[in-house]
């Protein structure tokens, strides 16, 4: 493959290396760091003139640093006369703020009581800001005290505009939280799904998958879960989270799981509260083993502790976000490698071939 340059930001260099190994090319050398006053410094060592540049950056870890680094990388390529700049974001930053979706973030007090009580005895894990202020501001927002309904900033369109303003010509994103997000961009957006890799993992790693039930932990993810269970020919169940706040006794499960293994499917595990609560409900309804599969394993805050203490048998996430550190802290965690998927889409977009082949049937990679 000539005239291609693949660059990586500092968010997930290992994934970028795997993608390049898959493509059979070298990752281009690029020196990333910070100046003494904390400004981001970017030096691209190889010429990008008239080349097609792919920049791989995930919106994880220190999100603001990685986002600004991405913009500066794009700008540097633009100034270096690159022919076309494609941004590849395994996890798109600020993707959950595209509409008033803050209601979906459960406040701490709604996590399953058993899990929560064991957690309150421990001190807070590494967190940059005191949790109290965030919880307070969140409570204030949801109850609307003071008469004025607080205006929560939605950074979704902003990040899309900023990326275009920096000079990106094309975006490849994996499993965006809202597929409608594509419409925020003037440039072409290719959405790629981890579903084929997840289906392959279910078939190979879950021993009695043919008896399993696919469960969606909330109403919003039902479409995603039904797509998987149709391909595997399995039964489906749903947890109706919104009902739980009102009646304590309401079980909130729609469907039958008694005596069967269940697979909880979601696009992201962030605070772990959704999947923790879902696993408790499923256990109460008689599920035998509980598997949790998510595309993006962000695991912020007490997520890993919640999972360790919950009745979940195993958790599997893709490596859109670096997973090594999380695996050390959580023995239940397994990783699904999607680098081959991303490499395939890079190869096809570079060669000008169709990518719809990737979604018609689940190919074995």
């Amino acid at each position: 493959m000539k005239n291609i340059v693949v660059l990586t930001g500092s968010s997930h260099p290992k994934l970028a290396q795997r993608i390049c190994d898959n493509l059979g090319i070298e990752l281009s050398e690029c020196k990333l760091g910070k100046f003494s006053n904390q400004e981001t410094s970017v030096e691209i060592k190889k010429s990008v003139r008239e080349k097609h540049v792919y920049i791989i950056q995930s919106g994880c870890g220190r999100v603001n640093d990685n986002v600004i680094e991405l913009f500066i990388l794009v700008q540097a390529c633009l100034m270096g006369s690159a022919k076309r700049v494609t941004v590849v974001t395994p996890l798109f930053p600020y993707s959950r703020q595209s509409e008033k979706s803050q209601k979906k973030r459960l406040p701490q007090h709604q996590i399953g009581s058993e899990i929560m009580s064991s957690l309150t005895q421990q001190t807070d894990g590494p967190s940059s800001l005191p949790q109290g202020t965030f919880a307070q501001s969140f409570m204030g927002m949801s109850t609307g005290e003071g008469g004025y309904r607080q205006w929560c900033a939605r950074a979704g369109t902003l990040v899309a505009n900023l990326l275009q303003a920096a000079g990106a010509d094309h975006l490849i994103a994996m499993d965006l939280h809202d597929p409608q997000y594509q419409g925020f961009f003037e440039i072409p957006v290719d959405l790629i799904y981890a579903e084929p890799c997840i289906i392959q993992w279910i078939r190979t790693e879950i021993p009695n998958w043919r008896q399993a039930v696919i469960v969606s932990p909330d109403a919003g993810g039902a479409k995603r879960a039904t797509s998987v269970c149709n391909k595997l020919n399995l039964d489906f169940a749903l947890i109706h989270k919104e009902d739980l706040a009102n009646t304590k006794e309401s079980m909130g499960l729609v469907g039958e799981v008694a005596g069967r293994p269940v697979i909880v499917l979601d696009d992201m595990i962030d605070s772990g509260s959704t999947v923790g609560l879902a696993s408790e409900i499923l256990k109460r309804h008689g599920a035998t083993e509980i598997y949790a599969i998510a595309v993006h394993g962000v695991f912020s805050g007490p997520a890993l502790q919640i999972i360790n203490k919950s009745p979940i048998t195993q958790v599997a996430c893709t490596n859109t976000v670096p997973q090594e550190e999380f695996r050390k802290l959580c023995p239940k965690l397994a990783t699904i490698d999607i680098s081959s998927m991303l490499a395939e889409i890079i190869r096809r977009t570079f060669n000008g071939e169709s990518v719809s082949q990737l979604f018609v049937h689940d190919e074995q990679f």
Partner: protein
Amino acid sequence: MSSNSIRILAGNSHPALAKLIAKRLGTDLANVTVSKYSNQETAVTIGESVRDEDVFIIQSGCGEINDHLMELLIMINACKTASARRITAVLPCFPYARQDKKDKSRAPISAKLVANMLSVAGADHVITMDLHASQIQGFFDCPVDNLYGEPSVLRYIRENIPDWKNAIIVSPDAGGAKRATSIADHLDLDFALIHKERKKANEVSRMVLVGDVKDKVAILVDDMADTCGTLGLAAKTLMENGASAVYAIVIHGVLSGKALKVINDSVLTRVVVTNTIPHAEKKKLCPKLDTIDVSAVLAEAIRRTHNGESVSYLFQHAAI
């Protein structure tokens, strides 16, 4: 008839300066909460209505610059979607101002990128102080007010440096000569320049003084003090050439890395910075540090912008 009012929003970079500015204007800071979600994404919540108001967002490019830059962009965007009438970004220290040209292959022009990002986010107007290169104003399509700290610096020299009439203004590098000569002219003092001579690559560059500083108080003037390597060496050169004392006055005191150690170990009598960048903690570690308060200049600029009055008065006269 109700006209719109000033709303001041402050990010997390320099809340103390924002409070001073609000106090000067006789208002309170608007009720805004800026924090982070648990996955490190920035969360901004505006607690009062800004519909049809004149909004000023105060955020300096210092500390965790990328976090503060994202905070600023998200606040601007939030006010735009909340139907503010006009949004002005007040950046006492402009971030990435030093990356303003392509000095080697594939170097980004980050200052242009920041200008684009501010426009895209929805800023209608930008107020900043002592841009590293005033040509950066050209990167914007919206109006930019580049305020000067010079009148405040002149007043500080007159009030706080004993024997200033016998002083000499020195620029620590060739790039700052224009700034230093302007101050020297206003005070009717002599001027000198320090010039870095590079004999060979990898050899420590020698500093050459152009001008006479014998038996005079030398005042080094620059726009930014980051690691202070240049300032320390310049002070040493001046003392070797017979200066009686060396002061340093800079507008933006970034003071990162080993800066405080360099200042403490150097022959500088005093280092004066403005409060565009917070340094209360650094003052405890370095007794030579002194502050010029520029909140009055910024507050006056905000007031005049809101009332539609001329701001050019501030270029010549220090706000009281």
